[in-house]
């Protein structure tokens, strides 16, 4: 029987999510829902162990209800006979005296609190010898960090868990508590898999064709840098030494998605709202950017108000410009104050020598259209 491991990270239970406005509470519940679904996947797929690579919580001292959500889901794993392993992250750091991991006895099978990888856990499961390494960075105690990670012996399958930052660019200044590592470092480790947390988008690290580690990414998008599908990673070994079969399992409850709609041919904000309805699935949360050169000033507020009930939360960004619109071409023909006003502003835009100046003129034109028609 193959060994199955489910890897997740960056759940951020209890995140405030004030960027979602009135939808924040709902979004918090969606995060909890995603965490629940991750546990469902673990149970349904009969995994042997679940590894959580840090930032299970969004802060070091989450509210009691949030802790209970985690406790309940981890208990489900235990009941299902699935071992769970975890490390603290940067948001839920163990370094503080009031850290949730110091206060609460969460039902992990093992939660790594050591300042380096020196104390792995070894066990047998379904005939597989498994060694799990983990680290809880401690400014005071951690000295060797990644250097302390070395395969103990050649037998079995060896997995490491770390909440760490990949130094993709040598110029990046990554603090020590983010446990920086170079992309090639994982290749050099003689481990079977390194479960990473900290970066919120899915990413695999390879040695040749073989996956040697991954960021599973966040389970739910918390901001517009975390758009698209969210995942947990399922890793499966036929036996020690065999290459793992790695699958990213979509886990999202509601996706954050971005879209762009050209509203140049649309007559008004109502039509824009209709167009968004037609183009954007209501199952996702959207940030829609309006582009084009319509003959009116789109009202982002009105569109959002119109669509909020459908999407729960939606952001509409007006990136349209009226400079090239037919409306402005017509207005500029008039021998009136309005015509003169728009002629002057269009001239001003042509003279504008930076983006901000152009943005100011564009908005002034829109103000003119709003007041004059």
């Amino acid at each position, binding site marked *: 029987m193959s060994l199955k491991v489910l890897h997740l990270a960056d759940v951020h239970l209890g995140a*405030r999510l004030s*960027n979602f406005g009135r939808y924040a509470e709902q979004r918090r519940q969606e995060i909890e829902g995603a965490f629940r679904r991750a546990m469902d996947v673990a149970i349904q797929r009969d995994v042997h162990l679940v590894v959580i690579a840090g930032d299970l919580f969004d*802060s070091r001292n989450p509210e009691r209800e949030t802790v209970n959500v985690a406790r309940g889901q981890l208990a489900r794993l235990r009941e299902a006979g699935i071992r769970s392993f975890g490390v603290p992250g*940067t*948001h839920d750091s163990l370094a*503080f*005296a*009031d850290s949730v991991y110091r206060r609460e006895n969460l039902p992990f099978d093992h939660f790594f609190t050591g300042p380096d990888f020196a104390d792995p856990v070894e066990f047998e499961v379904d005939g597989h010898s498994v060694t799990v390494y983990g680290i809880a960075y401690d*400014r*005071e105690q951690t000295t060797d960090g990644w250097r302390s990670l070395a395969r103990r012996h050649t037998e079995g399958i060896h997995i490491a868990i770390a909440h760490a930052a990949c130094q993709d660019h040598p110029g990046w200044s990554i603090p020590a508590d983010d446990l920086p590592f170079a992309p090639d470092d994982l290749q050099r480790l003689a481990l079977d898999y390194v479960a990473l947390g900290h970066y919120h988008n899915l990413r695999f690290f390879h040695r040749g064709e073989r996956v040697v580690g991954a960021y599973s990414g966040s389970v739910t998008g918390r901001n517009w840098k975390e758009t698209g599908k969210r995942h947990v990673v399922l890793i499966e070994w036929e036996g020690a030494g065999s290459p793992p079969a790695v699958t990213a399992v979509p886990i999202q409850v509601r996706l954050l998605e971005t879209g762009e709609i050209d509203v*140049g*041919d649309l*007559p008004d904000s109502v039509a824009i709202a209709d167009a968004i309805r037609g183009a954007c699935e209501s199952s996702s949360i959207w940030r829609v950017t309006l582009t084009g050169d319509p003959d009116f000033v789109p009202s982002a507020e009105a569109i959002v108000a119109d669509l909020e009930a459908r999407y729960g939360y939606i952001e509409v960004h007006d990136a349209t410009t009226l400079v090239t619109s*037919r409306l402005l071409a*017509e*207005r500029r*023909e*008039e*021998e*009136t*104050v*309005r*015509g*003169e*006003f728009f002629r*002057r*502003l269009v001239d*001003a835009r042509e003279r504008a020598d930076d983006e*901000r100046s152009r*943005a*100011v*003129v*564009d*908005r*002034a034109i*829109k*103000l*003119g259209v709003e*007041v*004059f*028609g």
Partner: protein
Amino acid sequence: MTDRLDLRLVRLRVDGFGRLRDFSFQPASDPGTIVLAPNEAGKSTLASAIVRGLFGFRDKEREAARSPWGGGSFQVHQEWVLGGRTRCVIARDFATQSVVVEWHQLDETTGQISIEGRWEGQPNPRGRSVDRERYEAELRRLLGFATPEVFLQTAYVGPGGLAVRPIETELLRLLSGSERADFRAAMETLEAGYYRLTQADITDPSRVAKQKPRQLETLATDRRDTLRRQTDSQSEQVARDRLETALAANRSRLAEVDVEREARVVVEKSIRRLRELQQEEERFQRRREELEQAIGRITDWESSVREKTKELQPLVGYLRQEADFATQLGELRRLAKERDRALEELGVVRGGAEPRGRQLKFLGAAGGAILVVGVVGILAGGSVGLFGAVAVGGLLVLSAFGWSVRYQRAKAQGVEASQRSIKTRAARFEARRRAMAEAASLDPDAIDIDVERRRYDRAQQLKSELDGMQQARDALGDYQALERERREIGEKKLDVLRLERRQILEEYPFLDGDEEFEHRFAARQQQLEVEQNQLVEQELEHRRKLADLPLAPDDPRELEARVQELNEATERLAIERDAHRLAYTTLAACRDEFVTIMTERLEGRIGELFGELTDGRYRGVMRDPRSCEVTVEGVEKVEVPAASLSRGARDQLYFAMRVAVVEVMAADRALPLILDDPFLHFDDRRLARVERMLERVGATHQIILLTHDARLSDWSFPCTRLPAPAAPSDEELSAD
């Protein structure tokens, strides 16, 4: 205005448009036509058909409202004449949005009309298309513009808004070009928007209201507060970091002290090794000194040998001489003396012989001279005796001379023999001397026997010394071997020892110094104990301070994100603020420049037209630039506010204004005036004046007067009548 192209509608056919069906209308070109119809008969529909036939409907609902009652074709055909010779036919089918435009040219000489161009497309005004752009180009060719707004602002004059709007408002609206807001209202809106954002005066942003919320200021306050919290949080974090770093350093040092204190055995071993190293080093040092001395001696010997060899170099020939070189030199000296003596003797011999020769020659010469004197005296007749005696004397002298010569010759032969003997002897000495000198490699002519003797002796002495030195050199040993050993000691052995010593001292720097290592070690142990106690106290102090530090209330990462959000929001509002100000200042510039110019033009023309309409009762119209109030100047130069005029006079003023607008503000066409019952409140007298004015205006602008006023049927204008209505109310064009 003289450059304007005259534009007139010559035919209108409505296949279906609202209540109008199969309606055909050919307005007269000059001065125009009156369309007389009772209310609800379709006058405004007719006007709308003209406007919408040109521009179509932007609003679908309004288009639907104008669809033919009872269904059927929804088409309007118009035929326009531009500049007298160009004819343009526009046929619009509202059902399909298709439009056909045909251009015809009239040949004035032949009177024939030829098609100049034809365009067909679907320029739906509610969408964007190439057809729409093409059609608008056609419209611009015909009208000078392509927007219905301009047409409505200029060519179309409705019943007037005077019932609800004062004349000033109408004038402002016409100048502004917007039904929604005139430029003053627009400026007020922008000013209010700016105030909402900044609570400042848009004309003078330095004037700011106090103690009132303002969007930008609220954001700035929020941002300041967040930044302060971020700073606090960072400060707390920095303080925590600093304490934790100090604590870590403290603990690290304590661990080092522990290790060092516990490493006594290792240190003692190191001390032993240091001592060994020291002894080894001293031994090597001594050996190296010996080697250096030996090498120095060899170097000195070589220097001496070089000097003596150099000195011996010119004397080396003396070394080849036999042992009796000194005897030979004595013999040489003796031979030289012998030779000199012989030569001296030869000189004596020669010195004695030479004076006698000269005496003999004198005696011979004197005897000869005496003889000659005696002979010559005799021969000259002198005394024979005397001269004979003289001659005899001369002969005697000569005889003596002869005798002496023979004697001297015999004597000379003896001297010569003696000379030869001496010469031979001297030559023999000299030859022998030269042979000896040659044997000794000496220059016999330059030789100084004493000097040579000394040099010979010196050469022998130097040789003796060199021989002695060579024996000493042999005792000094192999220079290369010595040098090799010295170098090996200097470069390798000592360096190795010193490196090891340095490594030990680096590990235990307290052992470094002049004193004994044991003393130093003991002192170090004591020092470590003191340091250990201090470190324990410091650690307790750091931990106490850490415990006292409040936990950072805010997550610095969240605060950073919040600051970022606030920065973005502030920038958005700043752009909004700047846009308000830009729009406002642009509008103010339009007001100050464009409005001033247009108002001046309009005021003059309105005044003229109003004077004409009031039969000279009013002569001028003025508009206050600040209050925008319109006043009219009466015949007695009394200024009367427009608002104080009678309704009829105000309608006249409005009409004058609209006519002035079509004259002044239309671009480059003399547009027709489509008048939709604007004279409802005119009495007969006023109507008569209007008729006169329109007859004159009609010379340049075609008049299409839509009215239900039967009084106008008496005007000089051709009149077309529409049938009475049979259906419910029509919509007003203003609704378009």
